[in-house]
């Protein structure tokens, strides 16, 4: 192998290394802890994506029909054509 190649190779290694350092030393827990604390306090973790009220909060849970403004975490209710929903078992 030739010298410029060693240089290029060590540059690439440096990139990997600095990513690793940033990854390990980053304030991962600080962010996660705060988000978790909010979830723990409110007992709900509804992602506050910036969607309009008529948009579904979770993509793809219901295709066709009118989408209702529901909390992201709670999927649409079960279809109305299911009789076990109407009658108590």
């Amino acid at each position, binding site marked *: 192998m030739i010298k410029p190649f060693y240089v290029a190779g060590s540059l690439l290694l440096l990139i990997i290394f600095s990513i690793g350092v940033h990854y390990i030393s980053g304030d991962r827990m*600080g962010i996660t802890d705060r988000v978790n*604390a909010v979830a723990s306090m*409110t007992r709900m973790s509804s*992602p506050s994506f*910036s969607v309009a009220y008529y948009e579904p909060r979770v993509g793809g849970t219901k295709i066709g029909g009118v989408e209702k403004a529901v909390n992201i975490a709670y999927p649409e209710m079960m279809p109305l054509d299911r009789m076990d929903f109407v009658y108590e078992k």
Partner: protein
Amino acid sequence: MRNSPFFHFLTLEFFKERKKHMGVIAISLVILFLLSSVLFISSSIRYSLEQTLDQEPDFVVQRIQGGERVSVPTEWMDRLLEIHGISSVTARVYGRYFFKSKEKSFLIVGVDFMDEQSHKALRTIMDEVDLREFLKGDNMLVGGGVSHYLKSHFYPKGYTFLTPKGAFKKVHLFKVLPRESNLIANDMIIVPIELAQEIFGMNEEEVSDITFNVPNDDEWANVEDKISSFHYDLRVITKNDIKKAYENLYNYKGGIFLILFLITIVTFVLILYQRYSMVYSSERRHIGLLRALGWSINDVLKLKFFETMMVVIVAYILGVGLAYLYVFVLGAPLLREIFLGGANLHNVITLVPVLNFGILSSIFLIYAVPFVSAVLIPVWKIAVTDPKEAML
């Protein structure tokens, strides 16, 4: 490796002909950068959301009428407490508060601050908050998005809510939740539970829904069955449903992107095929000479294979590294809007760095397999060059 003439020659050739590879590396870089950025953002969001799942209650009981969630009477709580294996039954009061004209909405959540868990959590979120002060009057904690919105609409101190009963309720803005919690708290307003009930026009016997935990995993199905037969208009949601919703959310935006991305990949493959056919046909004499000097087809294949792998790996490291820098150091400006949307309150979240085998290998495969496949036939074509080309 250091002592191998083959690698010496390989790197020598690669370096001297680097201009030929630059174009391909540049295209690869753009593609890899886009792909990795999107996957990094979506997996970071998913990671954060999954982390919050541990805080979530195992079960939620809601009441459904006409397909809409309606208030639950608090007496249900007592009936739940009678079931064995159920613990920490808690009432929740929450709902969206709309600015009809602007189509913007807040999520108002009522919290019982006397509860041990909430108390502890509040201290994690903000170091200096005087709970007694907070509970004295009508105060609220708001997320970053809400605070920004209120300020820009000339409500810097507080906001007067209009309850369904027609009364006005003035609530003082007490503190803003820290920016790090924006992922779930951006459009959130936290108030004491009684105040939330007042804003939503509920009486004291009503709550939005009821949550509880079932510590023994094996009992989950059992408990779910029991509660479902409780009342005909009742809906039970388990933590697994929520987990799945997050998984889908992640797959939805990432997956749709990936499918669109396939078109780019096809174009990429065609460009590569063209380019390598061209580059290699200009190398015919060159390779013919190597063959005349005693290189076998296998030797040339090996040379070209390593050359391709070097391009692939260099582009991969640079592309992923750049995406990492863009997403986790710079916070992915512009691109994160795809994931956060712009219809409601503007959100600026802090992304937690997430790297794992799943993402890295997916990026590698979706890039390297089409790449090498596109190059395979041109490489073979050049490797079987007749040695007599050298005589021409």
